[in-house]
């Protein structure tokens, strides 16, 4: 059952990622990205990461992508006009990308030690309590620094997007 779920949602993720790269209109790319994030959330659930899966949907799918969709609607971003790309990118782009993926695949299969198979339910260590435990004991400093980072981001966004006072 988990194999079937993995195959379905991995296919959905790859198809949506292709769609993101190939679509002309930004809003279709945005919705494809939401599809990628949703299927990745299901894959996280298969790997036992229930808190991160929900956080992925809430933070990425429900906040970051809403921001993207808002900006696309506000700016009325239209379809992209195709312009001349460089000769090198046209000819050697896709083969180089395929070579990159092949190299990564080869490294994963040969260099890394043999890894276990994924069985849903064999590890239940991804609960909210354990993440909370780690966040407030071992990773307390990064947690506090990240909250300052969010404050800086809020200030930056407000300053950059405010109306000019003439």
């Amino acid at each position: 059952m988990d194999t079937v779920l993995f195959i379905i949602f991995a296919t959905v993720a790859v198809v949506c990622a292709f769609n993101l790269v190939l679509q002309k209109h930004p809003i279709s790319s945005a919705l494809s990205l939401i599809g990628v994030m949703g299927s990745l959330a299901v894959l996280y659930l298969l790997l036992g990461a229930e808190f991160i899966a929900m956080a992925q949907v809430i933070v990425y799918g429900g906040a970051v992508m809403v921001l993207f969709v808002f900006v696309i609607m506000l700016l009325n971003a239209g379809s992209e006009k195709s312009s001349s790309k460089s000769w090198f990118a046209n000819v050697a782009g896709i083969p180089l990308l395929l070579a990159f993926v092949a190299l990564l695949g080869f490294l994963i299969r040969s260099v890394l030690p043999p890894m276990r198979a994924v069985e849903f339910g064999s590890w239940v260590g991804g609960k909210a309590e354990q993440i909370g435990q780690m966040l407030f004991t071992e990773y307390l400093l990064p947690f506090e620094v990240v909250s300052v980072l969010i404050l800086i981001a809020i200030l930056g966004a407000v300053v950059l997007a405010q109306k000019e006072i003439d």
Partner: protein
Amino acid sequence: MHLPPVPLSWYLILSAILFALGVAGFIYRKSVITVFMSIELMLNAVNLSFITFSYHLRRIDGHIYSFFVMVVAAAEAAVGLAIILTIFKNRGTLQIDEVDSLKL
């Protein structure tokens, strides 16, 4: 019908494919919003890697790193989109090929 369980390397290969697609989108696309979305795709692929290794090593540290990547990506999206709004206000275009000089 009982299918064999999925080996963990398949998750890593999926992560590599998504990362490569993100790189392709980043290099090929002309609209600055789509370029930004390709960056988010790359970050998601890396998150998948973190969670996979966390499952393999049976440690929760991968989840924490993934959590921080998510937070940083959210902050970056907020500021980046504000910058995009400013570019649109000043240049009137969203194609990165036309934003190629510091002078307006």
